[in-house]
Structure formats: C-alpha cells, structure tokens
C-alpha cells in the first residue's frame, strides 16, 4: 500500500493510542490516516476533508488505528452526534459521569499540573509519560476533557510543538472521537437509570415479574398495560400530552398495525411534520430549544409505545440536527416551513428515491429461471419482485415465514394477487426448499458498522442455510438505516415482544399445552425475540441506493456519505 505524503512512521517508535505527530498538521498528513483507515477492500474515493479549525486537529499517525480521524470536519462547538433516545439519556449519563469525576478530577488535575511543570522545566519531547496518562485517562468522560481543555488553552501555544502538548489536543481529539462512538444505549439492568427514565416517561408500564435473565438489559413489560394509562394521561397534563398525530402513530405502533422500518419511519416523520406545522412558540421560550424539547418528549412517548427502530432513530437525529442548525435570523414561520421542507426532502430522497434505486440495481440480479427466496415481508424486496415480474422475467418466488408474526402471509397474498407463482413454507422446512433456490433477497432493519445485518428474527437462520447450500444472499437496505454501532450477537441488543403471542397458535385450537401460562410461572419463560443479528460472512452483498457493496463497505459509507448529510 503506497503512501502519499511525506510523513513516515519510524518503525522503532511505536506509539499506541491517541498520539499527536511531532510536526505539522497539514492536509497531506490527514490523507494518510484516511487511506490507512480505508483498508477496506472497496476503495471509495474520498472527498478532501473540510477543516474548520486547524489547531484542534490531531490525526493519529500510528498505522493500526481503527478509528479514523474525524475531528476537523465537525463544528467544534456544536455537539452534533446526538444520542438516539433523546437528550434525557445523555444528560443522565453526563450526570452520573460527573459524579464520578468530582471525586477524582481534583487529584487528576493536580497530577497534570505537576506533570506540566516538570515538562516545562525539562523541555523534553519524549512524550511517553503524559501520553500514557492520556491513554489511561481516555476512560474519563467528556466533561473531564472539556474542563481540562479549557484550563489548558492558555498554556497551549508554546507547548504545541512538543508531544506533551498532545494533551489538550488529545483531549479535544478524544472528545471528538467520543462523539463518533455512538452513545451507549440505555441498559435496563441499571436500576438507577431505569428509575430516572420512569420519572420522565409519560406512560406507565408494569414490568413483568418473570424476566428472562439473559435479557435483563432490555425492557420487558407486560403488554397491554400501556393502553389504559396512555388514555388517562392524554387528557390530563396539558403540557405533557403528545400531539394527536403522534399519539395516533404511537397507538398504531403499540397495537402492531404499523410494522416495518420504512413504514414506521415515514409515519413518524409525517406525524412530526404535522406537529411542527401546528407548533407555536410559547411565550418566553426560544423556538429552537423549546421545539427540541418537544421533539424529545414525543420521541420518548413513541419509545414507550414501542422501542424505536433504528431507521426511526436516524431520522430523529436528522431532524434534530436540522432544528439546531436553523439560521438565527429566520422567523418562526420561515423556520417551520424550512423544517417541513427538510422532512419532505428526507422522505423523498432517503426513502422513496432510495427504494427506486435499490429496485433498479436488484432487478439486474434476477434472471429467467431463477428461484428467489425471501423471508418475512420486506417492502423493498416486494418492490423488487414485482418490478422484475413487470419486466417480464420468468422466475419463481419462495416465501419463508415463521411464527409468531407470520408476516410472510401478507407478502404471499400481494404477490399472488399480482400473478407471481409462489411457494410458501415455514422456516423449519428451509433445508428442504433451499436445494432448489438460486437467490435469496432479504430486507433489513439496519446494517451495522461491523457488517452485521440487524433484521427480523429468523433472517440469520435463512442466511446460514443459504450459505450452507452455496446460495448468494443479498440484503436490500437503504443507507439511512445504517448505524455506527456494532453488534456481535443477537442478545446484546434486541426487542422483546409480547410473550403471549407464543401461547396461542392461530388456527389450531387443539394446541392447549400452554394455556394457563401466566407471567408468574416460575419455571417457564416465553421468549419472543423480534430481531436478530446476521454475521457478515453469510452476506454476499448489500444492495443500497449507492450501489451494490459488500458488507465490509458499510462503515465506509457511514463515514463518508452520512457525515455530510447532517452538516
């Protein structure tokens, strides 16, 4: 791999961690980590980065840096990378972290002052000690880094050359890097945070008494208890109650009328559109701040109706960025109009147009005589199959379905009504049917940064069996659904559905073994998972509107194309 630029890493000096180079932070040096970072097999031509603040840049020089240098492209003042689930979580984690910090901050600052004094006196550039301290202190939170950055600003200029000056820039860099790492999600086995979240929430939910131990970190509520409290709260507290459009959408999520990443996201955005339309700033409040707060409360409402999908989370992030980035001089009406236009544009570009592009790419992969298998009901895959049929291709479709949702039946109905010959079976019989299948098309709720496909439960099994029979698996997913987090298995992040759905088998009255199951049953637990994580080696390619890419290109797309959108 050739190296552009003149900086050469001295092989003897291995600097691990966040280290500043000795000299200059110019454009060329920035190109190096980008290239090194882009070790991924698909070389996407990277547009040159925009640097706002040259001084605060500290790209890493060590070759095996997994997190590429992102810093300069960001507005240093605005915290753009907002966590998914409203600002509540971030404030909370900031609070808990600051508690920890208060105890050790003083002593840490004292230590740093001492070190700086020693460095100043010695004027050495063997920066291993402070950098080690930095690496150790990387675990410290952003608060620490922000504070120390503030205090150290004064002593900066002279020390910037020496590597010990790596500290403030390091801290700044760490802070920026931390923004890249997606904020940790709320873990429900942390009792304090759960209690805090409960206080803020609009809806009361009773937790199940019988929790599956493995999933303690996920919310497990008794289904059906949300509705009564929702209805009562709706008419009570004027300031707290959600906008009717959002309430309606929330109810649709709760009852399961609205399923599917795209459908839920579009419905939510349309509801927000209405809300913004009807919104008027209360007196003595600032438009941006109040609107953001309103959006947050609505988001937490939707979250309690049903945990947010990743697509919805990304859309909310987008919306909040737009709100925050509104120009100062716009009047309220203009601001609202601009926001509404942005929402419309998002839906048009990221969802509708993206779907059309995906269909255009994917139909090239269907040939005459193919047998295409799909699992569950994905709207994109449905569009692909219908388009291919419209184009006159002769192929068969196999729809694989599973309990308890049996979403494949809807897809089957729609395909049959359009005149496609279909085969239908349960997921158990997949090994039987896979022998005659030539292509597998699957939809996804999201594709994560390590290439893992996060999708409806059962997708992983389909991909695995297809892989065992050497059938290519193609995931059809719009780029707005990609997410920076990583996941190795299906347990670390998931959604638990209603366990009662397992008890009754529709259409089979003779199955009464589980009748009389109650959540108090000590020995029996019913687990109804909603999602699972498919490892990337089962996936042949991911079809996005940007083209057909291997799953290893997903982090590249995340880095290059998604960063530009909010900014």
């Amino acid at each position, binding site marked *: 791999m050739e190296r552009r630029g003149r900086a050469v890493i001295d092989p003897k000096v291995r600097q691990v961690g966040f280290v500043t180079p000795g000299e200059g932070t110019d454009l060329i040096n920035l190109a190096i980590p980008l290239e090194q970072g882009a070790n991924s097999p698909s070389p996407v031509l990277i547009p040159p980065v925009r640097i706002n603040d040259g001084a605060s840049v500290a790209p890493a020089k060590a070759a095996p840096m997994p997190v590429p240098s992102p810093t300069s492209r960001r507005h240093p003042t605005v915290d753009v990378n907002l966590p998914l689930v409203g600002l509540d979580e971030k404030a909370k984690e900031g609070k808990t972290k600051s508690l920890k910090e208060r105890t050790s901050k003083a002593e840490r600052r004292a230590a740093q002052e001492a070190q700086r004094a020693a460095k100043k006196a010695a004027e050495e550039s063997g920066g291993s000690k402070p950098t080690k301290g930095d690496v150790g202190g990387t675990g410290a939170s952003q608060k620490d880094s922000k504070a120390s950055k503030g205090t150290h600003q004064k002593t900066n200029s002279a020390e910037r050359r020496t590597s010990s000056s790596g500290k403030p820039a390091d801290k700044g860099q760490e802070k920026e890097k931390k923004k890249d790492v997606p904020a940790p999600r709320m873990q429900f086995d942390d009792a304090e945070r759960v209690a805090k979240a409960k206080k803020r929430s609009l809806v009361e939910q009773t937790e199940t008494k019988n929790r599956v131990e493995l999933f303690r970190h996920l919310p497990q509520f008794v289904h059906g208890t949300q509705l009564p409290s929702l209805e009562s709260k709706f008419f009570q507290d004027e300031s707290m109650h959600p906008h009717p459009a959002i309430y309606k959408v929330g109810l649709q999520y709760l009852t399961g009328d609205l399923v599917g990443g795209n459908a839920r996201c579009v419905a939510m955005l349309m509801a927000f559109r209405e809300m913004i339309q009807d919104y008027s700033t209360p007196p003595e409040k600032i438009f941006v701040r109040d609107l953001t707060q309103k959006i947050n409360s609505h988001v937490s409402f939707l979250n309690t109706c049903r945990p947010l999908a990743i697509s919805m989370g990304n859309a909310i992030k987008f919306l909040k960025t737009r709100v925050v980035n509104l120009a100062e001089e716009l009047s309220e009406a203009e601001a609202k109009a601009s926001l509404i236009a942005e929402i419309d544009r998002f839906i048009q570009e990221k969802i509708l147009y993206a779907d059309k592009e995906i269909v255009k790419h994917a139909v090239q992969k269907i040939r005459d005589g193919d047998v295409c298998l799909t699992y569950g009901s994905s709207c994109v895959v449905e569009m692909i199959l219908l388009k291919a049929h419209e184009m006159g291709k002769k192929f068969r479709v196999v729809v694989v379905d599973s309990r308890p949702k049996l979403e494949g039946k809807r897809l089957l109905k729609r395909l049959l009504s359009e005149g496609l010959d279909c085969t239908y079976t349960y997921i158990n019989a997949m090994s039987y049917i896979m022998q005659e299948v030539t292509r597998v098309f699957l939809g996804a709720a999201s594709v994560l940064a390590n290439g893992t496909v996060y999708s409806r439960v059962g997708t992983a099994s389909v991909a695995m069996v297809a892989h065992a029979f050497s059938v290519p698996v193609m995931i059809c997913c719009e780029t707005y659904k990609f997410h920076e987090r990583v996941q190795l298995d299906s347990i670390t992040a998931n959604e638990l559905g209603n366990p009662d759905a397992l008890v009754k088998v529709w259409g089979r009255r003779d199955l009464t073994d589980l009748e009389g199951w109650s959540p108090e049953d000590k020995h029996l637990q019913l687990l109804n*998972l909603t999602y699972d994580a498919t490892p990337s080696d089962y996936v042949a390619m991911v079809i996005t509107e940007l083209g057909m890419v291997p799953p290893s290109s997903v982090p590249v797309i995340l880095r290059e194309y998604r960063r530009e959108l909010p900014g």
Partner: protein
Amino acid sequence: MVGTMPDVQPLVDEFITKLNRRQVEGSLDTAKLALVLLRQVISAQRIPPNSPANTLIEAIKSVGVRMIAANPIELAVGNIVRRVLHIIREEDASLATTVVTGVTTAVDSDDEDNLDIREQASSHAVAAANRSVLRAPSLHNLLESMPNPIRADVTVASTGDSDARSRSGDKNSRSWKLKHNVIESINELLVELQDYHSQVAEQALEHIHQNEVILTLGRSRTLLHFLLGAKKKRSFQVVVAEGSPRFQGHKLAKELTAEKLSTTLITDSAVFAMISRVNMVIVGAHAVMANGGVLAPVGLHMVALAARRHAVPFVVLTGLHKLCPLYPHNPYSLLNDMKSPSEVLDFGEFSDCLNGATGGPQCHVFNPTFDYIPPELVSLFITDTGGHNPSYVYRLVAEFYSPEDIVLQ
C-alpha cells in the same frame, strides 16, 4: 412362500391395518409391537426338520415385507424385521457349529441328556466364535459365506449313521432348539427395548453439568427421560424451540416445567439468536441411517448448522431400534413424509391459488416432516449401549444386521 399358521394371520392383519392407519405412534412402540408379533409368528410356525432356519426366514420375510409396505415412513418396522432375521441366522449358525462339536466330542455317550449338556457347554464358546464370524463380513467369510450352515448339515450326515434314531433326534431337537433360542433372543431384545429409556437416561450425568444451558427442538421422550435423569443431581436450564408446525415443543416445555426444570420456550426462528449462549444441543431422532446420517424432525438441520457455526456439540439420542441399515439416497424426497399444507397455511384465503385448474398464479405449500442431518454435523450418538461417533455406526449396523437382509423383496 411358506404359509403362516391361520391363527396368527388375524393378528398380523390387525397390526398391518394399524400401521396403515398410522394408529401406532413413535418408533419405540411400533418396534415393540412388531417384535411381539414376529415372536408369535415364529412360535406358531411349524418347522420342517430340514433347513429350519430357512423356513423361519421365509415366514418372517413374508410378514415383514407386508408390514414395511404398510408404513414405509416408520423405519423401525423394517429395522426390527431385519434384526429378527439376523437373530435367526445367528442362532442357526451357532447351533450348526454346536451340533458339529457336539457330535465329534460325544462319540461314546449314548445318553442324550449328557449330549445336550455338553452341547450347551461348548455351544456358548462356539456360538461366540460363530457370532464373530457372522458379524464381520471379512474376506475370509465372503468367499465361503453361503455353504457354512449347509456344511454343518453335511458333516452331521457324514459322521453319523451310528444311529438313525439319534440323528433324527438331533435334527428334531435342533429345530426345536433353534426356535427356542430365537424366541429367547427376541425376548432379550424386547427387554432391551423396555429398558431403552432408562439405559439412555443413566448416561445423562456424564454429559450434562451444573448450570449448563441445553437447547432442543420439538419433543422426544428419550430426551425427556434423559433430562430428568440429569436433573436429579444437577441443576441446569433448557431452551426449547417450539418445532412448528407440530408444536411439540410446547408439550415438552410443559412437561419439563412440571418437573421444575427452568425452561425457556422460543420460536424456531430464534434458534440462531439463542445458540450463542447454549452449551449443548441434545435432540432425539426418528432414524439413524447406515452412514451416520440422522432423520430428525424438520428444523433440526438448521439447528445443526447453527450449532456447528457456534461450535456447540450436537448430540443425538437414539436407540438400536432406530438404527437402519439402509443408506440415505436422496433423503429429502424418499425418506420424507409430506403432510397436509393446512397445518402451514389456512386454505380459506388462498384456496384459488392452491387449485391448479383456475389458471391463476399457483401457490405450492410444503410441509415436510423430517430433515436429514449429514453425519458431519453430529458430534455424538448416545444409545442404550453407550456413546458412539457417527463414523462408528457402520460397525453397529454390521453387528446387528446381516447383509443378505438389507433388501427384502
């Protein structure tokens, strides 16, 4: 074609009707009933003095072919028939050698009782040797497989015209002895079948340890006994996948909960999600084929693949009555049982599409009952005779079945 005795005929017909109507459920019960029936056939069969074994073999074959044809899916029937045939051949061979040794050793004694006793004494040693001869189709045997029993007859004929009386006496007692031995062996086999569950459950403590998580799909009675056997001393958890479209997993979950084992019920689609936290997969089988491949309830191939991916041992509980000497050619089509699509898809909404005559788009629905798991995916077979590797199965087949019986015309 040897005619069976008339009083056995109605019993045979009744059993065959039951098989036809699928009224007998489960390979163990089928095996027991088949064995009992065959024992009756043997005891009722009148055996001519010369070539008693062949008479018996023909009788069993004629009944067996009808039983297999009544329910070809239930491979246990064919296994038992072949097992009985093997027993007959074995006993015949051991008796033939004892007669030879008996005549040569007891030249001077006229006492028939003494003769019998000495025959008995040496017969065990000879029978053991004979069994080893019968078991391994070694090159030594292949060249002279057929003449063995005949040779015994010939030697007897040549040795003694000392008394015609004693010779006919020998022959009579020999056919009687053959029948007697065969019925004894069948009784032993029956006892083995009765004890099958407890024999397998005894081995449970070696495999299941404290705080382990076991995954299974569907329901197997052997598995239930196995888990309960382990539960006496160890505490562990079980994850049961429901096994649609029969949903036997629900029943198993209920049974396990009744015994106070902590159970989690999941859908089949969640198997890949959960298997990363599982220590072992233990399942029952419908049949084990001669190459070590397993016919198991549908969905288990997916579980086996997931288990291999996560390096989780895949253990199959089986009994020797499920061991089939056939090789699985095209198991998905030939050894499968396709059930009604109504279990998978309700006819109401899709009835036009399921009917070919309407000319519209066609909807095919598949509902297979069994999955074939190739031997590479199986880690261990646990049988009533202990644990075995899939690559050892061919030896078991050679021990319990004769090569001449594999194809029953």
